[in-house]
């Protein structure tokens, strides 16, 4: 296949697509989604982009005859597929009936959601056995309209389904389709040569050689999120507290943390790399350490930011070491607070990060216990020292509709 589609421009891949019935050779960057391939590459601007994360439905097109999100279908994912956009439905019988009904029922105002809405409606017309209003509303839920309140849309789709069923046209059942994502050919590989051409690109992005600044650690810190965790350790409180004085040892217990320097007795520089699923957050910064011998307590307050200064975090761990349940054991009360700013913070599902923070704290406790017991220091796993990070990440990865 790639032989027949030889020599794409550097950084681009060549694809065979059938678009609205016409076989085409298309070149695109691998990162281009089908919406951009159609709009920017082929000037088929009827496919609209409303969110580029799969919720609004404006970009819904037909892939091998079935509705799919253009914004979540990358160019290489549909090599060889048949793509039908709204421009390709001019002579489609169902679309024609829908257009007439949409016009009659005032099912569009600004028209921006309309192409995707028509594609989704067409699919419902084909599949729904009868014109049930509730099922039509639910079936159209993947397409947002901000103008019409859906009244005209629901009426139009209802009428078209009722009409067709009254004319004896039965619903389709989707038999005979191959298993797997629509538009994805089976047994067709693409790409090794393209991959090599492109793979270098991400590495060669220029980065300005400047130190990343981090927040000033002098002020008071009011974290946006806070949790406490208790750790039982089979060592006397004084021994445990003494261990907390060894910041290198403590850092070694914190998964993903690496120390890079100690510019002042109470200050360390370094970072922490945190992963939440596929998201890797890497923060560099500094932390300040304070201890109170009398109360066996202390505080680590740190701040850092990612390479571009876009996402930043500030965190604080307060600890207090006290006697454990059994004689000669200790209980460490950790009070962890953290705040995140930037794109990683701007989601609404903090629970995912609390889970991560809890897991980091548990690993920390386990590593600390092992270290106090004389075990070897846990190796920081797979960390590139250049991609250091610090602190706990609060991210809500709107994990999208939960559906890879």
């Amino acid at each position, binding site marked *: 296949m790639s032989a027949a589609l030889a020599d794409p421009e550097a950084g681009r891949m060549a694809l065979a697509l059938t678009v609205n019935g016409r076989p085409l050779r298309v070149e695109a960057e691998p*990162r281009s989604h089908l919406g951009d391939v159609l709009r920017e590459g082929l000037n088929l601007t009827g496919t609209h982009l409303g969110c*580029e994360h799969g919720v609004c439905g404006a970009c819904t097109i037909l892939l091998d005859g079935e509705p799919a999100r253009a914004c979540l279908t990358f160019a290489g994912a549909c090599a060889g597929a048949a793509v039908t956009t709204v421009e390709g439905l001019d002579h489609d019988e169902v679309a024609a009936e829908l257009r007439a009904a949409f016009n009659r029922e005032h099912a569009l105002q600004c028209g921006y959601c309309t192409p995707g809405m028509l594609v989704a409606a067409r699919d419902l017309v084909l599949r729904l056995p009868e014109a049930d209003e509730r099922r039509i509303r639910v079936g159209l839920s993947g397409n947002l309209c901000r103008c019409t309140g859906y009244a005209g849309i629901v009426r139009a789709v209802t009428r078209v389904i009722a009409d067709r069923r009254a004319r004896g046209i039965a619903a389709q059942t989707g038999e005979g389709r191959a*298993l*797997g994502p629509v538009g994805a050919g089976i047994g067709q590989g693409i790409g090794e040569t393209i991959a090599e051409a492109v793979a270098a690109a991400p590495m060669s992005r220029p980065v300005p050689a400047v130190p990343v600044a981090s927040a000033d650690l002098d002020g008071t810190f009011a974290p946006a999120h806070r949790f406490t965790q208790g750790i039982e350790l089979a060592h006397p409180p004084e021994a445990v507290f003494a261990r907390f004085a060894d910041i290198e040892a403590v850092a070694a217990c914190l998964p993903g943390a690496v120390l890079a320097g100690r510019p002042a007795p109470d200050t360390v520089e370094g970072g922490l790399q945190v992963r939440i*699923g*596929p998201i890797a957050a890497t923060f560099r910064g500094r932390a300040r350490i304070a201890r109170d011998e009398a109360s066996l307590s202390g505080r680590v307050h740190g701040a850092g930011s990612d390479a571009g200064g876009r996402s930043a975090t500030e965190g604080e761990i307060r600890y207090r070491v006290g006697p454990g349940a059994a004689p000669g054991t200790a209980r460490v009360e950790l009070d962890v607070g953290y705040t995140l700013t930037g794109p990683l913070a701007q989601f609404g599902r903090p629970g995912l990060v609390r889970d991560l923070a809890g897991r980091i704290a548990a690993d920390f406790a386990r590593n600390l216990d092992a270290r106090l017991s004389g075990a070897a220091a846990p190796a920081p796993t797979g960390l590139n020292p250049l991609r250091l990070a610090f602190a706990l990440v609060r991210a809500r990865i709107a994990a*999208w509709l939960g*559906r890879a």
Partner: protein
Amino acid sequence: MKPAPFAWERPANLAALLERVATAPGSVKLIAGGQSLGPMLNLRLVEPDLVLDITGIPELRQARVEGETLVLGACVTHADIEDGRVPDLTGGALQRVASAIAYRPVRNRGTIGGSLVHADPAADWVNALTALGAAVEIAGRNGRRTLPLERFVTGALEVALEPGEILLAVRIPALPDGTAWGYVKHCAKIGEFAHAIGAVRIEPGAGRGRAVIGAVEGPPVLLADARPLFGGRIGADFAERFDPAAADAALRAAGMADAVERHVHVTVLARAVAQAARPNPLPLPEAA
């Protein structure tokens, strides 16, 4: 909102995929339907050097029955299950879960394997299949292994895949006759991520049951032995014996500190139990 640059490869067979996963330099992400990873790429939350498209591999796009177990390749889509293109050993339970995932255009590309590897705590398959007692088949260059789902999903968005491994298939045991099944999810709007999920698989005759409380902050809360939820004993009268306080205690023990959250999750679980106790299978749920 465009992704950072990445290379794209589409191996044509499993051997090529496993080789590439094991040896490719830089950061590598596997993509199936792309309905979860796609938004993260577009938002630049994920910036891999190489994306490996696994949907061209025939082994991943198969479904078969092995005795009392349904084996679904990782790239079988929600719509494939919804439409009945795969065998069913669950009396329609899988079909009902599938048809209420997100929206049809998403279901047409979103895959069961991708959903499990993504391991969002609020996703349907992570919870439903845990309750059903499913397992996953994992493949690497050095061989294959099978893990029960509850050991596969280790945290929010975290799974027990080792470097170089991929999820090959999902093994779903049959729901034998006489097994009661209930699955309820609570969303503020259709197609939205669940705020709470309750799932129960109960064998009144055998006195056994599994229950899952899902859409929590971490992996599903699984009660592999659900008897404590029913006063210590599961029988034909299990629905009447359901004890919300026991469910609440389980959630407390799992670390759910927020009383409102616990109330919602316990309520949803109670409704899953009530659904399981109904004599007739439900019609297909509302699906977007």
